[in-house]
């Protein structure tokens, strides 16, 4: 089955198929590259802060919920929290509704809503983004304790 032994018309077919794959692959690749902005599910905190994200338009924004930044209203479901990219961009999200179970500090979120002129994001829906880490509860407890120890 070496190329040398392959009959010429079959070798031609093989190259035709490879050519077809390269052409369709690069056309799909170029299309996806051109649509990159649209394929991204959400705007990052840096894009929100720098003004790349459109104002007063329905968009999605995502990032990590900053530690100690969640403020809940006492008499309704209103909640306010800060979303960060763990570098130096952060913005505030206002939301009125039920948050998913996984919503917590230090967890990724993706919110759908609009950005107002003051750079505050008014969310209509907040989704929790799960990361790729899995562990049993006992292990998580041990890690949390280990984190808590030095601060004592």
């Amino acid at each position, binding site marked *: 089955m070496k190329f040398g032994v392959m009959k010429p018309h*079959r070798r031609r077919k093989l190259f035709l198929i490879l050519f077809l794959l390269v052409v*369709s692959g690069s056309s799909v690749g170029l299309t996806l590259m051109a649509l990159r902005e649209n394929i991204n*599910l959400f705007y990052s905190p840096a894009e929100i802060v720098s003004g790349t994200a459109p104002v007063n338009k329905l968009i999605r924004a*995502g990032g990590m919920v900053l530690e100690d930044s969640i403020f809940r209203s006492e008499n309704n479901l209103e909640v306010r929290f800060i979303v960060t990219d763990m570098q130096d961009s952060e913005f505030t999200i206002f939301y009125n509704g039920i948050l998913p179970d996984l919503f917590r500090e230090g967890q990724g979120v993706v919110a759908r809503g609009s950005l107002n002129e003051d750079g505050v994001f008014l969310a209509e829906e907040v989704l*929790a983004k799960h990361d*790729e*880490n899995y562990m049993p509860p006992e*292990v*998580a407890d041990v890690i949390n304790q280990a984190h808590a120890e030095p601060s004592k």
Partner: protein
Amino acid sequence: MWSLFHKLGSPRPFYEISDRLLPILGCLTVIFLSVGTIWALGFAPPDYQQGESVRIMYVHVPSAIVAQSSYMIMAIAGAVFLIWRIKIADIALQCAAPIGASLTLLALATGAIWGKPTWGAWWVWDARLTSTLILFFLFIGVIVLRSAKEGSEAVGRATATLAVVGLVNLPVIKFSVDWWFTLHQSSSFSLTEKPSMPVEMWLPLVVMVAGFYLFFFYVWIFSVRTEILKREYRSQWVRFIHDV
């Protein structure tokens, strides 16, 4: 080595060799899937954040992996058919498509069931989910196109071309979580790094993945055999085997 390939390329030796292989495959499938299911549902630990719903992963991940592999196998069969005109490659392509479509649907469904409690949404149009939906449509397209005319070689060539071109979607699925911002998490496994999951979680997962692969090959070979009989029912050897 090559003589075995040549043998498997023609219907009759394939039928005879797979006759001996199939019971072994079937037994292994039952063993792996039952051990994996009991282990995953009964003994694997819950997750610190997702709780018990993490067990959906033990069906979701294997079905997604094997769905993509079955597309790969289907496309390779298509290329072999286009280059060497081996009829059994056309049969192999035709038989892989429904299994791949079912597995993709299973991955999409289990993903949605997991997504609702974890993310808060059944479905989002992020790159991973959308490209997997496209994979499902590709399988459907192959099934529909192939069924345009049973056993026709021209239809077989058209189907094989579609299957080969659709290969472009596989790297898009694989790398979608790295190339774009998606809601779907990135892979917990890679060749270079340690899995971001403890051994008591990934070991049953590996058993399930193996079980799903075995299941795929069992059903695939089974239906290739059936299709061989359907296409060759006039030939002497088929009449000889199934002499009623």
